[in-house]
């Protein structure tokens, strides 16, 4: 794929089903900048049917990739095309990354009805990559009806996914934490479906009690499915797929899905403004104005806040 191909040509080819063009567009989304912004506008104007975006999250090693691979199988048995954005962490030190999610999915990867893309988090906090949202919009514009977003293995509070997906599947394991962990804020609050994976191990009943105890007080908590799986053997995954479809339909019928999608627009707009602002600030700090303010502060002629105010004013005037 030539990098010199105009964006709208690539976009048309990708919408026509050319995988290489779609792959190239996802790289454009990852690179950010002007081309990504133009791509975003193309997606917005495409009037494609809405995709169902499903977040899959949980601790490192919980079995997210294996579950995702098994869910691909479920979707394909219903002849549903399905795309995956699988995110792994970038090294904060070198920027490099090893993206290993595909290892568990390669049996599905030659199917024409499956598109898997690995993304490095590239410094983004919260378990996702900067390009996740635009990547999902590109896939949606290209007609993929199901998009699975597999997050980085996360701790308790990296719940960025809840603002980016229609619904969230949280993958836990037997012996995970205890009642106290289950009652902590964060991960437990964003789940629409719980999966206890590796359910052939000891402690399933206790983990189920902890989860059910934690969600009992949540509005609608009683409706949240808690499903046991052994994803490596495919056990229980059909139940997860059925629960995803059922929960998604219920969210849509109740109007909650529309509310969430409105919330997503607000969150993505804020995130786009913030990252544009961060870039502007970085340029400003490295330039003459930044040097001048730093020198004034160093010389005792100004305080940190006064300097910051001066730089902010420069951005607003610009």
């Amino acid at each position: 794929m030539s990098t010199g191909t105009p964006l709208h040509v690539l976009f048309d080819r990708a919408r026509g089903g050319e995988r290489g063009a779609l792959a190239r567009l996802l790289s454009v989304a990852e690179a950010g900048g002007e081309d990504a912004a133009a791509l975003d506008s193309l997606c917005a104007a495409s009037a494609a049917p809405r995709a169902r975006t499903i977040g899959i999250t949980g601790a490192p090693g919980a079995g997210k990739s294996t579950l995702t691979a098994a869910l691909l199988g479920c979707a394909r048995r219903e002849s549903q095309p399905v795309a995956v954005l699988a995110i792994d962490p970038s090294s904060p030190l070198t920027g490099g990354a090893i993206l290993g999610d595909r290892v568990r999915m390669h049996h599905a990867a030659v199917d024409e009805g499956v598109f898997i893309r690995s993304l490095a988090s590239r410094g983004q906090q919260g378990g996702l990559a900067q390009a996740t949202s635009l990547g999902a919009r590109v896939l949606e514009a290209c007609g993929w009806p199901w998009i699975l977003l597999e997050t980085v293995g996360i701790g308790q509070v990296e719940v960025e996914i809840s603002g980016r997906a229609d619904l969230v599947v949280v993958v836990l394991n037997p012996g995970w934490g205890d009642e106290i962990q289950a009652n902590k804020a964060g991960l437990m609050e964003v789940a629409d479906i719980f999966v206890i994976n590796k359910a052939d191990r000891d402690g399933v009943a206790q983990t189920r009690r902890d989860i059910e105890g934690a969600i009992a007080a949540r509005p609608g908590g009683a409706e949240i499915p808690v499903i046991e799986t052994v994803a490596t053997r495919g056990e229980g995954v059909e139940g997860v797929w059925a629960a995803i479809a059922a929960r998604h339909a219920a969210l849509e019928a109740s109007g909650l899905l529309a509310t969430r999608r409105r919330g997503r627009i607000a969150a993505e707009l804020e995130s786009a403004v913030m990252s544009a602002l961060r870039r502007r600030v970085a340029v400003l700090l490295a330039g003459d104005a930044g040097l001048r303010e730093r020198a004034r502060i160093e010389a005792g002629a100004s305080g940190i806040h006064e300097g910051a105010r001066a730089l902010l004013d420069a951005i607003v005037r610009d």
Partner: protein
Amino acid sequence: MTSAPKRILMAKTGLDGHWRGPTIVARALRDAGFEVIMVGMVTADEVVRAAIDEDVDLVGLNIGGHVEVAERAIAAIRAARPEVPIFCGGVVPPWAKKRLEEKGVEVFPPGSQLPEIVEAARRLTGWQAA
């Protein structure tokens, strides 16, 4: 601002189960700032699909067992993404090394040093972390 990291696909052709070499090479490439997409032991079709969908800038093949299997994968990658460079490691006999090099594939047989491989990745992708 530096350009986005280049992406390298690491795949294994053939049926011997040694995953150690590719893993060590992948770590070295990661430490040099590359994004390394691992696909494990795969068929030629699977390598090609990953090279397309992942829009990689370089493909690394670990050759285990028959060189002919790797050659089939190389031919398939060349057909689908002719602009993407390929390099190989693993147990490659001298006669096969020559044959692969004639196809424009760089070969790193056992005993190759990690810095050589990292340097080759930088040269083949035209990219270096800042």
